[in-house]
Every structure is written in structure tokens, then in C-alpha cells.
């Protein structure tokens, strides 16, 4: 079945540093979605794009569909960015199935 691999599993940064999170998927995806979860919190959608690059605030999502990979860049990290970032892959256009990776746990230190 569809698989999603994320790296790194965990990341520790100093406040102000940039973060690059990777996502690789096993089959052709129509859409890659990035989610954020604060400890004990709900999953919140950050960005969703089928291909190319999309920005919101300090976040940039890049999806290279042909190479079955995507990335999330966080610029000028803040302590409040700490949490788990999950990527999820949507399959072909005629299915609503969405499969998740295990996530990257980010810790931003002062």
C-alpha cells in the first residue's frame, strides 16, 4: 500500500535557525499536506499543494511529484514552532484516501 516516510524523526534548533523537513512517498500523489500538532493538541493543517511551491508566513512547502518527495521549510524558527510536523499523501484524483507519515518532532530552544 501507499507509504509515507518522513525525516528527520526529530530535530533540535536554536531559535532563529531554519528547519527543513522531508517527506517521501511510495506512489504517485495528487496532493501533499502538512500538518502541525502541539503536544496534547489537535492536528492542524498548515499547507496543502499538489506540486510546486506554496508559501504561508514563515512556511514554504515544496512538492516534486515526479520524484515522489516533498519538503517543508520553516524560516527563522520560534519557540512556539515546537511540536510534531506530519506530512500526508493523497492518492489519485478519484480517491479520497490520505496516508500519513510518522512525523518530525521539532524542538526549538531559546
Amino acid at each position, binding site marked *: 500500500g501507499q507509504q509515507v516516510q518522513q525525516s528527520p524523526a526529530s530535530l533540535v534548533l536554536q531559535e532563529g535557525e531554519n528547519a527543513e523537513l522531508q517527506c517521501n512517498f511510495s506512489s504517485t500523489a495528487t496532493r501533499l499536506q502538512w500538518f502541525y500538532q502541539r503536544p496534547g493538541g*489537535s*492536528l492542524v493543517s498548515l499547507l496543502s499543494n499538489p506540486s510546486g511551491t506554496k508559501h504561508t508566513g514563515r512556511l514554504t512547502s515544496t512538492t516534486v511529484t515526479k520524484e515522489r518527495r516533498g519538503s517543508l521549510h520553516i524560516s527563522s524558527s520560534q519557540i512556539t514552532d515546537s511540536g510534531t510536523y*506530519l506530512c500526508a*499523501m493523497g492518492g489519485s484524483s478519484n480517491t*479520497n*484516501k*490520505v496516508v500519513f507519515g510518522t512525523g518530525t518532532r521539532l524542538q526549538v530552544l531559546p
Partner: protein
Amino acid sequence: DTTVKQNPRYKLARVGKPVNLICSQTMNHDTMYWYQKKPNQAPKLLLFYYDKILNREADTFEKFQSSRPNNSFCSLYIGSAGLEYSAMYLCASSRGQGANTLYFGAGTRLSVL
């Protein structure tokens, strides 16, 4: 309002007993999902409804049932809970077809004793 609501937030169940979890959304979304989340694991897709059509994952086909009596509500039913069912259960919804943006509820934490 992009709210997905799940009830209850916490559920205690005995081994062998049934469990019913509830999810609702008021966004008129076509698709509603149920995921199982265990610590340090990816959220695992159990099933989803697109409109009235139920899609269940092959490896959990016999373990979970669901119903969607109307567009807003979706339930997850476990006929006989086992210890391995202890997990966070996440409900999500999305608009249209083609894996659009998912909106998640806060989850129901199920503990089976």
C-alpha cells in the same frame, strides 16, 4: 466554522465490550475519515466515507464498523474491544473528492482495560 467535534474526549472500555465513538462536522464536507493514532506511530487510516460510500482499509476491515446517518455525523464502532485498541481515535473531514485539505477533531482517547 471549521470545527470537527468528537465525543467523548476520553473513553474507558472493558475487554470484550463494544465501543461507539461519535464525530460531527458542520462544514457540509463530503468525506469523513477515522484514523487510529498510537504513540510514535503515524496516524493509521481505518476507513472513510465519501458521501454515503464507506471505504474500509483491508487490514482493519473486520475490526471496525462505521455509519453515517447524515452528512454531518459519522460513528466508529468496535464490536468487541481488545487491549490493542487502546489509542487516540481521530476524526477528520474534507470537501469534495481528491484528498483535499483535512480538518481534524481533537480526538477521543480510548483506554481498554
